[in-house]
């Protein structure tokens, strides 16, 4: 049968709550609550110099902070290991086509926008990677980067001018931003969106990063156990299927929230 401890099927997600624009000091932010997992992502856009090997592009930097509020073991430097692992995974799933980096360039070789994506892990209830990737996508959708113009003098010195209207911003297209689907192998079956208890029972998991079109950008096996090749192919197919559905619902929720406009009642942690 297709029944888990809490009544879900093997491919069902728990109830996900997504809210954007939660923190005002950022260019974009999002909060995702997936069961007992609570993630807050803030995106800050800052002016920087393009990397030497990519002079026409801006760049994204990921930083993950595993807060001690998730578990006392994360106090001090305890959460650094998990944080670096998640940040490295995020770097790997984002490739050239995920975000249009050329739109972040202001003037080649001199100025570009650097997007610092900061993930704050507040509560850990299983399935961290999925929740974090959903939150990152929602935060990037919510990011508003101010429009700038480069003015050149007669001497050739450049000046960057910010537009006067605070609402004159460029919005990033998150069509190709991938989401991670974690599939945990428990016994002979595999499940999507495992809780902490289910994760403790599973020996190995497969992280599949899927875009909304079903393209797989990255795949990684985690866990102490081993997986046989047939299960990997099965899990990959499930991952792609589930990923497409996830993207579709996330897009509809984000568009619906955005259509409510600035008059929307912000709930945040108070609701």
């Amino acid at each position, binding site marked *: 049968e297709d029944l888990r401890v809490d009544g879900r099927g093997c491919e069902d997600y728990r109830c996900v709550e997504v809210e954007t624009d939660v923190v*005002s000091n950022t260019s974009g932010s999002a909060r995702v609550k997936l069961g007992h997992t609570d993630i807050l992502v803030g995106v800050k856009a800052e002016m920087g110099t393009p990397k030497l090997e990519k002079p026409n592009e801006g760049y994204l930097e990921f930083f993950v902070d595993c807060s001690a509020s998730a578990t006392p073991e994360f106090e001090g430097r305890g959460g650094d290991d998990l944080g670096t692992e998640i940040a490295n995974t995020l770097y790997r799933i984002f490739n050239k086509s995920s975000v249009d980096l050329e739109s972040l360039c202001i003037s080649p070789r001199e100025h570009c926008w650097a997007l610092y994506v900061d993930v704050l892990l507040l509560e850990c*209830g299983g399935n961290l990677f999925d929740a974090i990737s959903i939150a990152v996508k929602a935060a990037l959708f919510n990011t508003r980067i101010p429009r700038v113009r480069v003015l050149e003098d007669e001497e050739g010195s450049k000046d960057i001018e910010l537009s006067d209207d605070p609402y004159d911003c460029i919005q990033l297209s998150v069509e190709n931003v991938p989401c991670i689907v974690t599939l945990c192998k428990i016994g002979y079956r595999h499940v999507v969106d495992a809780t902490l208890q289910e994760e403790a029972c599973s020996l190995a998991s497969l992280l599949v990063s899927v875009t909304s079109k079903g393209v797989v950008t990255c795949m990684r096996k985690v866990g102490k156990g081993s997986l046989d090749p047939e299960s990997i192919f099965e899990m990959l197919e499930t991952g792609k299927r589930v990923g497409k559905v996830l993207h579709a619902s996330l897009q509809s929720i984000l568009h619906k929230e955005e259509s409510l406009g600035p008059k929307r009642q912000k709930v945040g942690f108070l609701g």
Partner: protein
Amino acid sequence: MAGLELLSDQGYRVDGRRAGELRKIQARMGVFAQADGSAYIEQGNTKALAVVYGPHEIRGSRARALPDRALVNCQYSSATFSTGERKRRPHGDRKSCEMGLQLRQTFEAAILTQLHPRSQIDIYVQVLQADGGTYAACVNAATLAVLDAGIPMRDFVCACSAGFVDGTALADLSHVEEATGGPQLALALLPASGQIALLEMDARLHEDHLEQVLEAAARASRDVHTVLDRVVRQHVQEASVLLGD
């Protein structure tokens, strides 16, 4: 900032408040289900989250256990996106360590640690958005979280900041007011007895004005106490409705 009037001639501050007026406080207890106690508070644009674990056995070296009371352990962390300029490290820098020690001092005065010997109480505070008065917001959030965890306390701990401009004491400073570099007083008060748990002041202030500023901070802390008291009662009422009493 030259030309920025912190207090206008009519007595209004930059954000339209009066000198002794607090910012709007909204709070919620029991934000996270997995922690023993948690609370979230918004004081104007400053947002802080506090999570409490404990009392539980001492983690790490057993030698730190105190034979007659509990050990209070605090960590202050502010998110990298909380301030206008991005912070590189959320915690571990000197200011965060100092805030952690101050929080520890504040709560050791309020929590009845004699009731839990040889154990540890962890209080973790996270600042999500910093717009002035972060210490006060952290203390208020931590009080609610400790109450949510059911740890017995002597009294509420209510905190507020105060400053001094043009002969008037201002209560509950915002970031703009703090950034001008004038005197800032941070006060943590136990309202019922009027005892001060923590008093800290930066910059120079003439001793003649100290009384006035201290009085403004104490009055503001008592106002905070009224709000927090209402939040706790409402939370208890909601919880008892859910339990079916």
